[in-house]
C-alpha cells in the first residue's frame, strides 16, 4: 500500500512536470482558448445591455405645430438617437445616410392634418443597401407603432391591446451573450483538453514506452490515475483563468452552483478523455490522431451550441447536436455556472447521463481495441 502511494506520487509528479513542460499544452490549453474568447467577446459581446438603439436624422422642412409635436414624441423614444439633436435639411440627412452615419432618416409631415390633403405623411428613408437589415426593420416597426398610436389618439380611442414582452429563463439569472460565450469556451477548452490530450498514448506506443513500462512491475492503473489527476488539475486552471478573464475583462456574470459544477466537470473531463483514449486506440501515428481529434472537435465546436444557440441552426441539423456529448456538457456547465440551478433539474441529470454514456462507450471500445491489438502491436 505504502509502495503504491509512493509509486503514485512519483508518477503524478512526473506527469505534472511533463504536462507543464510541453509547449503544445500551453498553446492549445491556455493561449488558444483565451485568444478565442477575447475575439468572440469583442465581436459579439459589444453592447452590455440588449436594448436596441439606432441613430436617425430628422428632417423637418416645413415646421408646423404637428411636426413639432411629433418631434417631441420621437425624442422620447429611447431607441432613437437623433444625430446632432436637431432637425436638419433633407440634403444633409441623405448625405449622412449614404455615408452610413445614420441608420435612417425620418421626415416629418409638412402640413397639419387636413382631411382634404389626406393623412399626414411621416416619411422613413433608408439606404437601399440596408433595406432588409435588422436595424431598418426595427426602425420601421417602431415608427409603424408610433403611427398607429397617433391614429388611435386622433380617433379618440383608447388602445384595447397592450403588448408586454418579458423574457423567461430557467434559473435565477438571465443568460447574456457574454455568459454564453464564456461558458461555451470553458466547455470547449475542457473538451479539447480531453480529446487532444491522449496523443501522449499514441506517442508512448510509437516510441515503445508502453512496451517498456509493461516490462517493469509498474502498476499501469496508477499511471492512468496520475494522468487523470493531472488533467483535472489542468482543467481547473482553465476554468479559473477563463472565468477570471471573462468576468473581470468583459463583465460576464456567473452564478455558480459548486455541487453541480463539480458533477458536470468530473463527468465531462472523464468522458472527453475517454473519447481521446478511443481515438488513440485506432491511430498509429500522431498525425492521424491529430486529424481525428481535429475533425471531432471542429464538428462539435459549431454544432453543439458553443458560440451560438442550437435553436439558431437549421431544423435538419438539430438532431445531430442532440446526439453530441459537447451539447450536454456545455448545457450542464451553463446550468451550473450561470443559472446555478443544475442539481435539482431533471434535464441536467439527463444530460449528465448521456455525457457519461458517451464516456463509458468510448472507454469500453478503446480498451477492447487496445487489447485486441496488443499482440500485433509488439510484432
Amino acid at each position, binding site marked *: 500500500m505504502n509502495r503504491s502511494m509512493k509509486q503514485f506520487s512519483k508518477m503524478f509528479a512526473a506527469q505534472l512536470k511533463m504536462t507543464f*513542460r510541453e509547449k503544445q499544452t500551453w498553446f492549445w490549453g491556455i493561449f488558444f482558448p483565451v485568444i478565442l474568447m477575447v475575439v468572440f467577446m469583442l465581436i459579439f459581446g459589444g453592447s452590455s445591455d440588449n436594448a436596441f438603439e439606432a441613430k436617425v436624422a430628422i428632417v423637418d422642412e416645413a415646421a408646423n405645430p404637428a411636426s413639432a409635436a411629433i418631434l417631441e414624441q420621437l425624442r422620447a423614444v429611447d431607441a432613437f438617437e437623433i444625430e446632432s439633436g436637431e432637425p436638419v435639411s433633407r440634403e444633409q440627412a441623405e448625405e449622412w445616410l449614404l455615408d452610413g452615419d445614420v441608420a435612417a432618416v425620418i421626415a416629418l409631415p409638412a402640413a397639419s392634418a387636413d382631411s382634404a390633403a389626406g393623412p399626414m405623411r411621416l416619411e422613413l428613408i433608408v439606404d437601399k443597401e440596408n433595406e432588409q437589415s435588422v436595424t431598418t426593420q426595427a426602425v420601421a416597426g417602431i415608427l409603424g407603432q408610433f403611427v398607429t398610436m397617433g391614429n388611435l389618439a386622433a380617433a379618440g380611442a383608447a388602445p384595447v391591446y397592450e403588448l408586454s414582452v418579458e423574457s423567461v429563463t430557467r434559473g435565477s439569472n438571465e443568460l447574456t451573450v457574454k455568459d454564453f460565450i464564456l461558458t461555451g469556451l470553458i466547455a470547449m477548452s475542457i473538451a479539447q483538453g480531453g480529446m487532444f490530450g491522449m496523443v501522449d498514448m499514441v506517442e508512448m506506443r510509437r516510441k*515503445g514506452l508502453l512496451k*517498456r513500462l509493461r*516490462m*517493469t*512491475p509498474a502498476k499501469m492503473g496508477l499511471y492512468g490515475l496520475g494522468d487523470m489527476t493531472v488533467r483535472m488539475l489542468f482543467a481547473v486552471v482553465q476554468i479559473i483563468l477563463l472565468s477570471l478573464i471573462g468576468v473581470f475583462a468583459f463583465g460576464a456574470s456567473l452564478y455558480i452552483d459548486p455541487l453541480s459544477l463539480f458533477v458536470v466537470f468530473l463527468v465531462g473531463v472523464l468522458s472527453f478523455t475517454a473519447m481521446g483514449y478511443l481515438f488513440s486506440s485506432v491511430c498509429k501515428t500522431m498525425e492521424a490522431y491529430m486529424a481525428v481529434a481535429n475533425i471531432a472537435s471542429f464538428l462539435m465546436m459549431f454544432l453543439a451550441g458553443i458560440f451560438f444557440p442550437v435553436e439558431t441552426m437549421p431544423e435538419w441539423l438539430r438532431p445531430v447536436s442532440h446526439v453530441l456529448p459537447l451539447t450536454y456538457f456545455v448545457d450542464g456547465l451553463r446550468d451550473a455556472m450561470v443559472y446555478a440551478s443544475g442539481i435539482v433539474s431533471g434535464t441536467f441529470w439527463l444530460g449528465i447521463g448521456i455525457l457519461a454514456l458517451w464516456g463509458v462507450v468510448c472507454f469500453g471500445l478503446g480498451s477492447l481495441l487496445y487489447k485486441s491489438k496488443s*499482440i500485433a502491436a509488439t*510484432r
Partner: protein
Amino acid sequence: MNVLDVRDLRKSFGDVHAVQGISFSVEAGEVFTIIGPNGAGKTTTLEMIEGLVPPDSGTISFGGLNWRHYADAIKMKIGVQPQSSAMFDLLTPEENLELFASFYPHPRQTEEILQMINLTEHRNKQVKTLSGGQRQRLAIGLAMVSDPEIIFLDEPTTGLDPQARRNIWDIVLKLKELGKTTILTTHYMEEAEKLSDRVCIVDQGKIIALDTPAALIDRLTKEREVRLSFAGVEEAAAEAERYASQEASVVRAVREGAQLKLWSVQPEETLYSLFGFTKEREYRVEQVSIREMSLEDVFIAFTGKEWRD
C-alpha cells in the same frame, strides 16, 4: 548455475516463421551475445524471453520461474533496454531514473547509476536534448534501476559513433565485474568478440552456432592471411613470391605490384623462413601483417552470406 533456460522456442506471424526452435542456457555472470542479420529472429526471441510476446511453443525458465505463474517475480529479476530508446523525453535523466525506481521495492541509488552511465553532468537536462549515445546510456541505466540479476541489451550500440560505442562497452564490462548476467544482441562482430563469453549465431530463426568467440574462430580452417609490402620494389616481391610458394605451409600466394599476400596454415613459420630469405637478399620489407580470423569470417563461413550492417 543456469539463470535462464530456453527450450525449443517457436513463433510464427502468419506465414513468417520468425523463430523455429531455439534452445540455449545462460549461466550466471556471463555475457551472452546473440548475433545475426536483420530479420534473423533475434528481437522476436528476445521479446519472448522478456515476456512481451507469447511463444507459440517452447519453454522459458528463469531459474525455475516461468512467465505464466511468476510474471511479477521475473519482472523483478530482469532489466531491459529495448531497441527503441523508450523513455520520457520531457523528463531529465535523474527524473526518469527516479520514476523507474519507484516501480521496484529495492531500487539502486540514482546517484550511483548516474555515475556508472556517466551522465552526472547531464542529470538536469531534458532527455530530448541528449545525444544518441547519452540516451542509449540512460536506457541502459534504466535497465539497471532495479539492480537486476539479468540485463537484456538489444542492440545498444547501433547507430552510435565509435567513442559512444566504447562508452557502452565499458558499461557492459562494469556490469560483468558486478557479477551481472548480460544478454546482448548486436550487429557488430567486433563488439561480440570483445564483450562476450559466448556467442550464439542466429539465422532464419535457428541457431547455427553457439560457442565462445575463440572456439568459433578455431572451428574454421586455420589459414591466416599474411601481407608483406616490399617498399615499392616489385622485383623483390616477385622473388619472395617464388620463394614462398615452395614453402609447405603456404597454401596460396598472390602478388599485386610490390604487395604480397600469402595464405598460410602456419604463419609464424612461413614468416620466419621468408625473413631469412629477404635478409640474405637484402630486400627491405616495409610492412608485415597477419590478419586474425574474426567473427565476421565465422559468420560468413557458417551462413554462407555476406555480413551486412
